[in-house]
């Protein structure tokens, strides 16, 4: 445990405008990451001269070392990158920043994420420029000339999925939901409740990419099928934008411009044998496969926070796909195993009257897909009383990162 004065707090949040993929043309993804950092610092009443640490998570193209140099940080004392893949690492990056300030490694750490799918590959597209078999490089090991040498462990693993047409996340996670449906009777309409509810939340959020696009259950059911059981509106957005979160100690927080939000607990990791998640591993135990894979993270999170799911006022749950929200709600203990669908269909997720308002900003389905760091931003706003779907008197917020990959989560608390 840290000394009281070094308890980690979030003192600033910021973002760039969010736009549909390709919608931001006047700044690069890298420039947006810097804009988001500056916006979060301005929110905190701090400047780049106060910052001595930067944190992000796996696959970030926007290296902290260059960010530090371009921002003119006086001295970089902490540069943390979580190994958790893709959207699994947003909460881990914040937890790592919190650990850095609590240990005294750094004083002010900014966590950032920028994603411009218009400038780079759209995640929902298949692989580009795949060599045809007849044209494949002949550098493969062994005697099989048409099998290329893998440049990474991950590439060797997805060789067992990509050539079979499982080369986009909705395909891999549709298979997880199909298994969940088979075991527990989860339905398409139950997934639809997630999509429709969070779209309604987005309607109140001026930052939301889909804010002006109301959706009914009929609209949801009429959207085109992508990979059964996932329709278009089961899938998160592909967009451009960036956001950032400033983490420092309680002692420093006393001087900042905003009401600090306490990082009550963070947890991260993966189940035994989980690998990179169901995207590349379908041989894991059945109870793990048909789940968010977050049971261990949840158990450790609640233990460290000293509270349980019944004590949470509002939750921001990673929503790359509607169905995986249901699985996360199960793993974090808001309902019994297999009951995520009925829980959502009961209206529990809806602001303001549901038992557990979820994704009050609209989530990745309707606000923006910034690998879930925007879910941390929204959690902070809820505990500052600044959400566009404010849960009255909210004192605790759960934030989760991606289901289906090694993942992480936070419990944030009002100061």
């Amino acid at each position, binding site marked *: 445990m840290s000394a009281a004065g070094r308890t980690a707090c979030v003192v600033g949040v910021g973002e760039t405008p969010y736009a549909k993929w390709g919608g931001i043309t006047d700044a690069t993804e890298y420039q947006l990451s810097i804009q988001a950092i500056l916006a979060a610092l301005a929110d905190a009443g701090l400047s780049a001269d106060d910052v001595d640490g930067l944190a992000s998570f796996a696959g970030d193209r926007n290296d902290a070392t260059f960010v530090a140099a371009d921002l003119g940080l006086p001295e970089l004392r902490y540069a943390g990158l979580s190994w958790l893949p893709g959207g699994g690492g947003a909460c881990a990056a914040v937890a790592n920043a919190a650990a850095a300030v609590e240990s005294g490694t750094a004083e002010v750490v900014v966590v950032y994420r920028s994603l411009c799918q218009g400038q780079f590959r759209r995640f*929902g*597209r*298949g*692989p580009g420029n*795949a*060599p*045809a*078999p*007849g044209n*494949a490089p002949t550098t*493969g*090991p*062994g*005697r*099989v*000339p*048409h*099998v*290329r*040498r*893998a*440049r990474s*462990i991950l*590439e*060797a*693993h997805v*060789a*067992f*999925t*990509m*050539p*079979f*047409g*499982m*080369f*986009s996340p909705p*395909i891999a996670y*549709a*298979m*997880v939901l*199909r*298994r969940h449906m*088979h075991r527990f009777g989860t339905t398409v309409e139950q997934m639809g409740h997630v999509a429709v509810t969070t779209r309604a939340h987005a309607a109140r959020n001026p930052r939301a990419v889909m804010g002006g696009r109301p959706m009914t259950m009929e609209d949801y059911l009429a959207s*085109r*099928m*992508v*990979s*059964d*059981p*996932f329709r278009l509106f089961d899938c998160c957005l592909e967009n451009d934008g960036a956001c950032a979160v400033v983490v420092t100690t309680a002692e420093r927080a006393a001087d900042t411009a905003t009401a600090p939000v306490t990082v009550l607990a963070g947890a991260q990791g993966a189940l035994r*044998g989980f690998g990179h998640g169901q995207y*590349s*591993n*379908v*041989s894991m135990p059945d109870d793990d*496969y048909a789940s968010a894979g977050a049971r261990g993270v949840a158990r450790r999170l609640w233990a460290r926070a000293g509270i349980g799911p019944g004590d949470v006022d509002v939750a921001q749950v990673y929503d790359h796909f509607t169905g995986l929200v249901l699985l996360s709600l199960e793993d974090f203990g808001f309902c019994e195993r297999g009951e995520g669908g009925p829980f959502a269909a009961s209206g529990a997720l809806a602001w303001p009257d549901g038992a557990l308002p979820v994704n009050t900003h609209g989530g990745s389905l309707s606000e923006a897909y910034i690998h879930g760091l925007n879910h941390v931003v929204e959690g902070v706003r809820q505990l500052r009383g600044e959400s566009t779907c404010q849960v009255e008197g909210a004192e605790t917020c759960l934030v989760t990162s991606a289901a289906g990959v090694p993942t992480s989560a936070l419990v944030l608390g009002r100061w």
Partner: protein
Amino acid sequence: MSERWFPDEMPTPAASAETVGWWEAAADHRLVVQRCTACGTTRHPPGPLCPTCRSFASEWMPLPGTGTVYTYTVVHQAFIPALGDTVPYVVVAVELDGAGGARLVSDLVDTDPSDVAVGMPVEVAWEDMGPELALPRFRRAAVPGAGPGGRR
């Protein structure tokens, strides 16, 4: 060359030192799974050591090429343009018979997508994608006394 179900433009596999033996067997139309020769545990995808007993010794165990559908999805969107004439296609995870619980991602071919179900028995159908690249697809297992493709 075998029957073809998928276009030439499909992504081709890349192999590591640990996985290349599986692809070599596939090129000969042999479906195998990696098995630890110390404790007998199977693993897929292949890896350098046994996660159960941590032995580095392993072998490629031949499989009968049959199994059941563990889960599936019917893909309607052509994520690469070359699949425009192929969609909808069915991606399956096959629980392989005799493989100690190992499952394989593959495709269900020669079967109406509306017929696929969890638990459906399937059998391997090799597709030669190039002179030395073969991929194990699966089709509905023939049932004794049934018509072609197991339809009754």
